[in-house]
């Protein structure tokens, strides 16, 4: 399938994609036996929206020269990107089960040279935004490619890194209007809640003072995500940041809002429970009764 046009899928279809992605994340992490659960689950709606309805991409031609770019700055959340890419058709879903295994192109943290479709190598935090800014600079000032956009997802704990604010200052100075950054505002990081570990607020004010156009949205509302991207694209004199409020561990009750799940995978029993919950959408629909 070629995913090129905005609005190709309905909101309901995107939500279904996001749910499939969440189930894949749980299965991948259980099989891997290590990895991060909370962040990837929280980002499923955003990535499903970007890959299926927003970005101008062709999963069959990852190096397509007219594509939009996607940079995952918080590389530890890559399970959501792998699951989304597989769902979009970049590679066979069977590969998802090789996450973090020897010889797999699905490394624990993303490596561009190992998997077509990845634009960068990340994991150490704080550098993806600047890489995205480099591409955005090139499109805007060197290549005269004003119709292409560069999307970047950063964590919120990641904003502790100085490199982020160096990049923010840079993008602000050069008014990189084709750069659209999503801050995954899930309020958790490894050592606890972000406001306890290293307070980020006033987060909106910080970005505004660096010369960015700022929006805040519910990261689980597909229409809000799409509307915010539309607004960001319409802003032509500044880079855009969309503070995307998400629930860490979204969709799995015992993981939601709990920072302990930042860096843990589910064990077999937990995965079973998580999948049951995702299948029934938290008990809202009848249990399908499928085995894990």
């Amino acid at each position: 399938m070629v995913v090129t046009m905005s609005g190709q899928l309905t909101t309901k279809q995107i939500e279904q994609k996001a749910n499939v992605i969440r189930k894949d994340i749980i299965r991948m992490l259980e099989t891997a036996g290590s990895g991060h659960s909370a962040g990837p689950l929280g980002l499923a709606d955003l990535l499903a929206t970007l890959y299926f309805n927003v970005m101008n991409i062709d999963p069959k031609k990852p190096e397509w020269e007219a594509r939009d770019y996607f940079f995952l700055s918080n590389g530890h959340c890559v399970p959501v990107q792998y699951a989304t890419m597989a769902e979009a058709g970049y590679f066979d879903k069977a590969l998802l089960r090789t996450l973090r295994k020897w010889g797999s192109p699905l490394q624990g943290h993303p490596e561009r040279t190992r998997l077509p479709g990845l634009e960068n190598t990340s994991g150490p935090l704080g550098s993806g935004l600047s890489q995205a800014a480099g591409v955005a600079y090139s499109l805007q000032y060197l290549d005269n490619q004003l119709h292409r956009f560069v999307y970047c997802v950063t964590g919120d704990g990641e904003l502790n890194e100085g490199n982020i604010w160096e990049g923010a200052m840079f993008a602000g100075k050069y008014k990189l209007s084709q750069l659209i950054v999503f801050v995954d505002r899930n309020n958790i990081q490894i050592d606890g809640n972000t406001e306890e570990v290293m307070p980020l607020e006033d987060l909106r004010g910080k970005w505004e003072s660096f010369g960015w156009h700022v929006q805040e949205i519910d990261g689980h509302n597909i229409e809000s995500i799409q509307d915010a991207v539309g607004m960001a694209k319409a802003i032509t004199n500044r880079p855009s940041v969309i503070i995307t409020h998400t629930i860490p561990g979204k969709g799995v009750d015992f993981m939601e809002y709990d920072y302990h799940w930042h860096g843990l995978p589910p064990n077999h029993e937990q995965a079973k429970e998580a999948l049951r919950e995702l299948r029934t959408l938290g008990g809202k629909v009848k249990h399908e009764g499928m085995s894990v």
Partner: protein
Amino acid sequence: MSEFHLTKNLFDGVSAEPIRAGFGRGLKTAGEVDSRVVALCADLTESVQMHLFRDAFPERFIEVGVAEQNLVTVASGLARAGKIPFTASYAAFSPGRNWEQIKTTAALNDQPVKVVGGHAGLYTGPDGATHQMLEDIALMRSMPNMVVVVPGDSLEAEKATLALAANGKPSYLRLARDKTAIFSTPESPFEIGKAYVLRKGHDVTLCGTGTMTYELLVAAEALKKHHIDAEVIHVPTIKPLDSQTILHSVEKTGRVLTAEEAQINGGLGSAVAELTAEFLPVPLKRLGVEDRYGESGAPREVIEHFGLDGKSLAHKIRQYVERVPQYKKGF
């Protein structure tokens, strides 16, 4: 092997120029040759001689301010967009401060980001220990995918810059601040990964990199009157190391000394020691800065204090040669 042409008046009124000046000229030429070449600087444009490129190609010059982490990560993005980015700052800051970003977003990511470290080594003189970067060779040499080049003079820096613009690999180029002797000529060859025998001899091999190569030539000349016939090899590429040229020489001479304006731990000396220990374990001595920091002083004063001028080197080499016998196969 192509012959390395040395300048005619090597020991009598040799001309001098800062190595960084050659980089400045080379970058401008690289910009003329290839429109993908872009330059990024962290608020040191004239100091690292990027102004020539900036003035010729203002649309391809990007000022990033005093932000070395951003310097190389933006460059990584530019490389992803098909550009050949040269980044420049002082070596103390880049790669001194941003090593991880270089590793992750340029080297592991295999993007042709060029890290140019200016004001490296002891010739940074009066600025003192914080600015006399001595650990950069070790830092960059340990990084897979990375090419490490330390030109011997300004003419070679110019050629090296052009070669790095075309090599398609993440690369480090080390530059010195102060005027140093120009021992090569416009005709001298430069190829990434090649070492050059500048002077043939039978008693000892002397391997130098950067500004130390000229000092070794001076030392070798002085050693003649002590009946020591030294072979001098110039090693402008630390990585990949020209194993063949070095092993070929030490097989003949049976002992080797290395000289560099850097920490002896992890630099050229370590590279040659690793090579010879594995393949031809000849006696070896590393000359450079011995596990300490530099300090302020006039550039030449600092070099002499550390015993890295030609005269001091000759003395150390002579002592070593008189004390340590040549390795003979089967001994």
